[in-house]
């Protein structure tokens, strides 16, 4: 075991995969000598050169479209979208083109590409640099959406995303980037679509993904031992691991989903739909979703904190639920 920053785990995954398979190349803004604005591709330009680390103009549509074009002609590109918010500039390429060509072609043309991006709330970067749009893409047949929390999960899931023969949206978190995690010396691919129990418990199932897993764990720590919370890290937004969720809900009968994405029409709502449809008889009371209350992420620090669930919000909600 060793300790590394989450972002270093991303770099390692890219490096190890690129060393293993010459069909893999990177494409994105500022990913070359600078190593990416956060440092995710640090050292890779020096090691692999401009042919395999392609730094582009500011052209998100072309970046994603080019990744698709390369993926359907024999290569395995990993494109970077600097901020999750900027994916909006490439939605046609991702949603109308990459997600659909395998189906529309009757199975002739598949798209082994990865789109890496990052998000966060809490960095005072305001509404156009702080969005959680994973639900939009989880809603699109043909795409897979991955959102790891730990460095080991990031490394293993990124390897799987690269080896997947479909377009995978891989969502990192810039607050987590510089957080140190314990990681095994060797990390192989982790299966996409498998959630993980980060903390076992018997009283209530708390489901989360990305940065929010940390707040969930903190809340669980504070509420222990009085309330024994099972914290599930979804890891993959689509496909959802209903098997693991099921086992947990059958055990606890109580579910709280917490995410930074806007609560209304968010993936939490989808998770609850599945739980209510499939596990109704096991529920002690209605499942609940906590998310962004429904505002563009504000700039001012107290407003930004108030917009998305904080540790205390989770604690308060669980206390309310337990009383029911």
């Amino acid at each position, binding site marked *: 075991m060793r300790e590394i920053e989450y972002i270093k785990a991303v770099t390692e995954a890219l490096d190890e995969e690129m060393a293993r398979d010459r069909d893999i190349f990177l494409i994105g803004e500022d990913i070359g000598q600078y190593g990416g604005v956060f440092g995710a591709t640090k050292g890779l330009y020096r090691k692999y050169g401009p042919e395999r680390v392609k730094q582009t103009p500011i052209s998100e549509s072309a970046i*994603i*479209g080019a990744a698709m074009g*390369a993926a359907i002609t024999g290569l395995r590109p990993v494109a970077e979208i600097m901020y999750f918010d900027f994916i909006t500039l490439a939605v046609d*390429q991702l949603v109308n083109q990459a997600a659909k*060509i395998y*189906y*529309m072609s*009757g199975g002739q*043309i598949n798209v082994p590409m990865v789109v890496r991006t990052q998000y966060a709330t809490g960095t005072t970067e305001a509404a156009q640099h702080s969005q959680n749009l994973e639900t939009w893409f989880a809603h699109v047949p*043909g795409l897979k959406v991955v959102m790891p929390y730990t460095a080991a999960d990031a490394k293993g899931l990124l390897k799987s995303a690269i080896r997947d023969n479909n377009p995978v949206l891989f969502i990192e978190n810039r607050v987590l980037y510089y957080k140190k995690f314990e990681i095994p010396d060797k990390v192989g691919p982790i299966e996409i679509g498998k959630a993980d129990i980060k903390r076992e418990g018997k009283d209530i199932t708390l489901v989360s993904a990305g940065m929010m897993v940390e707040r969930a764990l903190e809340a669980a720590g504070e509420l222990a031992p009085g309330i024994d919370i099972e914290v599930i890290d979804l890891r993959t937004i689509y496909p959802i691991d209903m098997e693991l969720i099921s086992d947990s809900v059958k055990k606890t009968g109580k579910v709280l989903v917490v995410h930074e994405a806007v609560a209304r029409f968010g993936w939490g709502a989808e998770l609850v739909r599945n739980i209510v449809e499939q596990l109704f008889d096991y529920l002690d009371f209605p499942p609940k979703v906590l998310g962004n209350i429904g505002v563009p992420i504000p700039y001012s620090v107290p407003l930004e904190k108030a917009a998305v669930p904080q540790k205390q919000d989770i604690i308060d909600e669980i206390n309310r639920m337990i009383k029911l």
Partner: protein
Amino acid sequence: MDKKTRTGLLRQLYKIRFFEEKAIDLFCEGKIEGDLHPYIGEEAIAAGACAVLKKDDYVLSTHRGHGHCISKGEDPRYMFAEILGRETGSCKGRGGSMHICNRELGILGANGIIGGGLTISIGAAISSVYRKTDQVTLCFFGDGGANQGVFHESLNMAALWKLPVIFICENNQIAATTPVSEVIPTPTIGQRGKCYGIYGNTIDGNDVEAVYNEVKKRVAEARKGNGASLIECVTFRQKPHCMDMVESRQWTKEELKEVDQADPVVLYEAKLISEGVISRGEAERMRKEIKDMIEEAAEFGLNSSFPDAAAVGDYVYAQ
């Protein structure tokens, strides 16, 4: 140009024309559920350009893509089956007219989004350079597509990296119901190439040999590593935008005459006959042979079964 190439071009022109005419017949008979975007009048561009290509070169087509697909070698039987929604279709009935593709033939697809092929073509070109082959990519789009933001991004990137992509703008002078004069403020679209630092030209898109020769030159440059080109081919769209729409243009008698006299199929047949390349009789026999082939292809489609509804969930994710 040798006789084989020239008669080959004429065959391709007939093939596309008769395919489209048959498809329109099927549509008017109520046999096609979806819509059609007829390529009638524009055949010289697809026929001339694709005749230059090798099997492993790539083509990005448009919503008006039957001409490109036929010219790149897709079997008209599978194309009819596809637009009829049958399991034997090019895409097993999953894609329809606007999404016909054939991976083996390098037909990376007709596309339902205007300009949808532009950024994809950049990727295909990056790929061939990366894999060190001399494959080229032809990207078709129209006067409408030339105004999409992705046109800018794609030409810029192609120029930057000297990508082997030929951007072919099929200027049929109208986008759905909007005339090109109302949306392009400059005399030509071809002149835009210069702004990006690539070759740009405007040619007569109704002259199949002119298209062939121009594309051949630029493809040769691309294969040598001399980068991208923009070729604007000016033509006429003889039919409405699609079969579901009425014609918006109010042609004057003079305009109709101009369109008729520019018909690429009629022009080229007359040219080859007048130059003694083929006789009138040979031309008639060629036409009959191809018409019969098209009829048979349509029959193949009509006699094919529909996909099993239980398989509706197939092909969402690859293994």
